[in-house]
């Protein structure tokens, strides 16, 4: 058991699907060999197939406390990594060369069904849902590993895989109901989001949070009563875990999306939410309806000039208020050399040293 739990709240009303978080994560953590198709952070369109494809049908997690059968996703379900022909398309001088993947035509990838969504015009709808490892309170992956290679850190509840003990058996991939664990076929290890633990240990927010232009992600300890996480999850009760029925008690929470109104056949607004409540309940459980009502009330309060601590927290005018105790600047981070870290590259005019290894970005 952990003494305290680091957690994240993601406000789906603010996410614009720009994938800056995805790239921040990619450049920080998964630029190595065997990680080409690895996205520890993904932003997918909902409703949609997600990453890996149709992951919500792949099982795992618990039911009534009992471990459930699960499918082990293949790399093809996540999508293979591919390079684009930047050189030819952008720098060759050939004006009619289109930007396209090099080599075999990819068949699937993260956010492949971007903006498809559901519903019929004019009542079609979608929203973006960023996902990372949920660093669950009851991690199915940890329970499934026969090697004891997965642990939950006492000091912050971050779930980590010890590559010295991992043998690439991948029972964790079947057990994780969120399918947030990848397999690195080069190193032979299971790999996943580490909640930027070298940053967290030094009071720096995760790369995905810090880089988000929409100020979508809140960080902090669940137990910290003055922090934004505790307020949004436990006080205002507007932040909900994804698929609570998986019973792993995820520690990434979501502010559910409000909807524009539906239109009737004459094009008049009907007052009905365009995103079906049943769909949101299928994602966030039965508490999502009351949570949406509380958010609507907060908005109404603000519009009427009444105070709303909920809205003030969600708006977060002060950037650093998003991050609880993790407000240190990334440039202050003390670099710890690892065997994976590559030689530093001096970036002119010597403003800073950029690394390409894990945790080495300046985000």
């Amino acid at each position: 058991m952990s003494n305290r739990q680091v957690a994240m709240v993601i406000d789906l009303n603010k996410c614009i699907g720009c994938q800056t978080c995805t790239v921040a994560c990619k450049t920080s953590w998964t630029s190595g060999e065997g990680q080409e198709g690895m996205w520890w952070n993904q932003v997918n369109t909902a409703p949609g197939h997600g990453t890996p494809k149709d992951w919500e049908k792949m099982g795992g997690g618990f039911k009534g406390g009992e471990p459930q059968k699960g499918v082990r996703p293949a790399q093809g379900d996540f999508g293979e990594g591919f390079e684009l022909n930047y050189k030819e398309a952008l720098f060759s001088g050939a004006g009619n060369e289109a930007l396209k993947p090099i080599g075999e035509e990819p068949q699937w990838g993260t956010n492949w069904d971007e903006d498809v969504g559901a519903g019929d015009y004019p009542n079609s709808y979608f929203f973006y849902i960023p996902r990372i490892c949920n660093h669950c309170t009851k991690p199915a992956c940890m329970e499934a590993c026969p090697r004891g290679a997965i642990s939950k850190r006492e000091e912050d509840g971050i779930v980590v895989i010890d590559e010295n003990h991992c043998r690439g058996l991948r029972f964790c991939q079947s057990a994780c109901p969120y399918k947030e664990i990848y397999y690195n076929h080069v190193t032979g290890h299971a790999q996943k989001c580490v909640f930027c633990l070298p940053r967290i240990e030094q009071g720096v927010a995760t790369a995905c949070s810090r880089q988000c232009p929409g100020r979508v992600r809140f960080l902090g300890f669940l137990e910290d009563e003055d922090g934004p996480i505790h307020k949004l999850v436990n006080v205002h009760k507007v932040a909900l875990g994804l698929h609570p029925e998986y019973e792993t008690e995820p520690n990434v929470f979501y502010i559910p999306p409000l909807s524009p109104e539906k239109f009737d056949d004459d094009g008049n607004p009907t007052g009905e939410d365009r995103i079906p409540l049943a769909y949101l309940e299928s994602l966030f459980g039965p508490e999502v309806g009351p949570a949406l009502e509380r958010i609507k009330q907060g908005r109404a309060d603000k519009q009427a000039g009444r105070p709303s601590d909920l809205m003030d927290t969600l708006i977060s005018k002060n950037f650093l208020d998003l991050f609880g105790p993790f407000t240190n600047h990334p440039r202050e981070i003390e670099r710890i050399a690892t065997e994976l870290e590559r030689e530093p590259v001096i970036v002119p005019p010597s403003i800073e040293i950029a690394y390409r290894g894990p945790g080495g970005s300046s985000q």
Partner: protein
Amino acid sequence: MQSVKITAIADYAATTAAGWKQVPAETVEMMPAPVEMQPNGFIQANWRDRPYGQLASLEAQSVHDGTTIAVRLRWASEKPETGGREGFPDGAAIAFPVTGDPVLWSMGNEDEPVQFIQWQAMKNKIRSVVAWGIGSSVPGTPVSESVTAGWSQGHWTIVMLRTLAGGPEAATLQPGTNTRIGYAVWNGSNEERAGVKAVSADWSPLNIDA
């Protein structure tokens, strides 16, 4: 099984070496490692209703030259599976008690470790590992282990070699004494790995010629 004393182990290193025809073969009955013995509920949930460890038997032979022992295994395998990029390879292992009287199925215990010589089809080598219980295996004392392997006509044949001398984490095999040996086989094309395998029902006697 009798480990027959011969003069030159090198003559038996190849899976097709003529000398093996003169060495008595023992048929070892195999069975799926019971699902109840799998180390956690997730592995049990995934494999409870899924057949695995279906190999009914394997053939085992052994020779030694006073320094090195060779164990030759042959078993039916529809197609050779190396695992490729994402799959799991065919595999086999022999086990010896390092000290005491460990239970084979539980891979030893805290005081009574078990040594495994494990082969996987995608690697042209074997490794000696030691375990003090399920999930605890780590590289053990090296015993100059080596292997040759070949698949032909629906069968894998492998010859594993190791020194008779052991160490703190490897069983010492003494000519003129009796010890025990256990077997395991993984069918990679069925995603078998770790405890999901075919195993011998218990230890078999291994009598090493003086």
